[in-house]
């Protein structure tokens, strides 16, 4: 019995050894080439940050090298600190609210006892996530408009003066945070709900017999059961601290709110593609990439260490 098993095993091993690895290399080759061209060459293109770049001469043409001049110029710009601050401020608010709100919603959803009701709620709150930011922003611009928007009509009805959510620098960052949560909270609850359903139901029974009410069960059973995934999501969101949400802000901001709403990515877009200051824009982008790369590495390391998370 043992013998025949090992004979088969041997035969498989032999066969495996004989089967050529060449097809595997041929399979990955197209992906390797495309990634090389569109991911690795742009990485090398960071040299633009150290040049007085003239597009006509080409990406790797004979450009004039200017050393760190672009970076120095960047730090002398009166608004560079402001842009950096806006980015962090908006991103941190989004990370905190984007973390706590979905956890609370998952806990509340879990308390719904009618399955059909729960499923309907889930279906509806996941939907906005699937709309593009163009569509969602289009809706928001309409309903938030100070003159004709329905939100301000409702505020007016309640006796509150119309608020220019997207045109007032004071309101703009908060509008961005709230609308971002609005679009994404439903979808973010999925992982937390999955974590809750993985908790062993006998623990709840034990807690109930020991006299724990719903509230105590939530604090002492559900939340500890979700701890691992919450820590994981929190750690990984650290790497997003320089991403305040380009697609969203780009579609809703205007020169009136640059003061509080301009972020690194929108600034790079305007500097680079609108004003054709390639060197300067790449310098900003490079700084962001380097910091982001460090943050991502740190957060993946922390996630690996504390939550035993691996990408693959």
């Amino acid at each position, binding site marked *: 019995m043992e013998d025949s098993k090992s004979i088969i095993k041997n035969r498989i091993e032999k066969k495996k050894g004989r089967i050529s690895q060449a097809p595997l290399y041929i*399979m*990955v080759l197209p992906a390797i080439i495309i990634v090389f061209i569109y991911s690795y060459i742009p990485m090398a293109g960071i040299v633009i940050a150290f040049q007085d770049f003239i597009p006509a001469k080409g990406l790797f043409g004979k450009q004039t090298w200017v050393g760190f001049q672009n970076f120095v110029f960047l730090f002398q710009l009166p608004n560079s600190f402001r842009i950096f601050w806006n980015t962090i401020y908006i991103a941190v608010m989004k990370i905190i609210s984007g973390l706590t709100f979905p956890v609370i919603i998952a806990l509340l959803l879990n308390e719904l006892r009618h399955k059909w009701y729960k499923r309907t709620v889930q279906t509806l709150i996941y939907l906005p996530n699937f709309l*593009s930011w163009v569509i969602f922003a*289009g*809706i928001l611009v309409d309903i938030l408009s100070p003159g004709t928007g329905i939100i301000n009509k409702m505020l007016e009805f309640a006796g509150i003066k119309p608020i220019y959510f997207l045109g007032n620098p004071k309101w703009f960052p908060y509008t961005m945070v709230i609308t971002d949560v609005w679009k994404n909270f439903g979808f973010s609850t999925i992982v937390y709900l999955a974590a809750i359903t993985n908790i062993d139901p006998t623990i709840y029974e034990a807690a109930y017999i020991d006299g724990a009410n719903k509230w105590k069960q939530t604090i002492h059973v559900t939340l500890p059961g979700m701890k691992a995934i919450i820590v994981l999501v929190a750690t990984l969101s650290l790497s997003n601290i320089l991403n305040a949400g380009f697609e969203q802000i780009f579609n809703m901001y205007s020169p009136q709110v640059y003061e509080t709403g301009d972020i690194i990515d929108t600034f790079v877009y305007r500097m680079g593609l609108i004003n054709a200051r390639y060197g300067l824009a790449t310098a900003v982008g490079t700084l962001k990439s380097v910091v982001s790369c460090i943050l991502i590495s740190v957060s993946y390391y922390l996630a690996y260490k504390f939550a035993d998370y691996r990408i693959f």
Partner: protein
Amino acid sequence: MKIKRTLGERIFNVFNYTYMLFLSLICILPLVHVLAISLSNKAVVDAGRVTLIPIGFNLESYKYILTKPEFIRAFTITLKRLALGISINMLLTIMTAYPLSKEVKAFKHRTFIVWYFIITMLFGGGLIPFYMTVKATKLMDTVWALVIPGAVPIYNVVLMLNFFRSLPKELEESAMIDGAGHWTILWKIYVPVSTAGIATITLFTAVGHWNAWFDGLILMNKPENYPLQSYLQTVILGLTTMLGTTSIAEDWKVLQVISDRTVKSSQIFLGALPIILVYPFLQRYFIKGIVLGSVKQ
């Protein structure tokens, strides 16, 4: 086990059920509101009387949009993008994930190649060098610019790779004994048994291509090459007004019932419509997909 409900719990339940209803409505009503505006008469819309039900029902805004050549052209480009993008993305995702799902023993340089791909998730050249690269490879103003640079979605490759790994090893081994090579094993055995995983990733890819707008905006110099969402970006959120200059709008009868706002609303709704239509079918899959991709033990 029967659980007795206390008064506090009952109050909580009433609150909770109401609150969840409120949240659901907040996610869906804006869309209903926009739909109502798009179907209403201009005068009523301007007076701010439309909330959730169209008043002065008419389809003129939709008629106006659907006869607009720019809209049709952008829609055609998006269809091309979807057809090319989905097939290229899926082909490369499957072909890349298969070798990487092997052990180092069966695929010698696996670790190195995996890192080669992972690094691009961690570090990138940023917007300008990317733009210059696409320009240098002469893809600007073609539909290929929207398809080729993103042809290898690394995140999906990782999902697919994990999916392949979860398949029983015996499948591969018995095929090998029967003399199958890697190509046969991949297309005749792995792909047919992975339909659930492939369907999930295909849907994500399709939604991604439908919703993409920024690449169209920067990689197309001529607005007539914009895919639908990029076109919508310029007309819904841009500064251009849609009415007034075109010849169709000169028909004063039409202009009496439509305005910029009703036309914008109908475009918003049309841009969201395919998502709303496929969403119910998609939902079954994506929860699994998300959980598969994020929670791994």
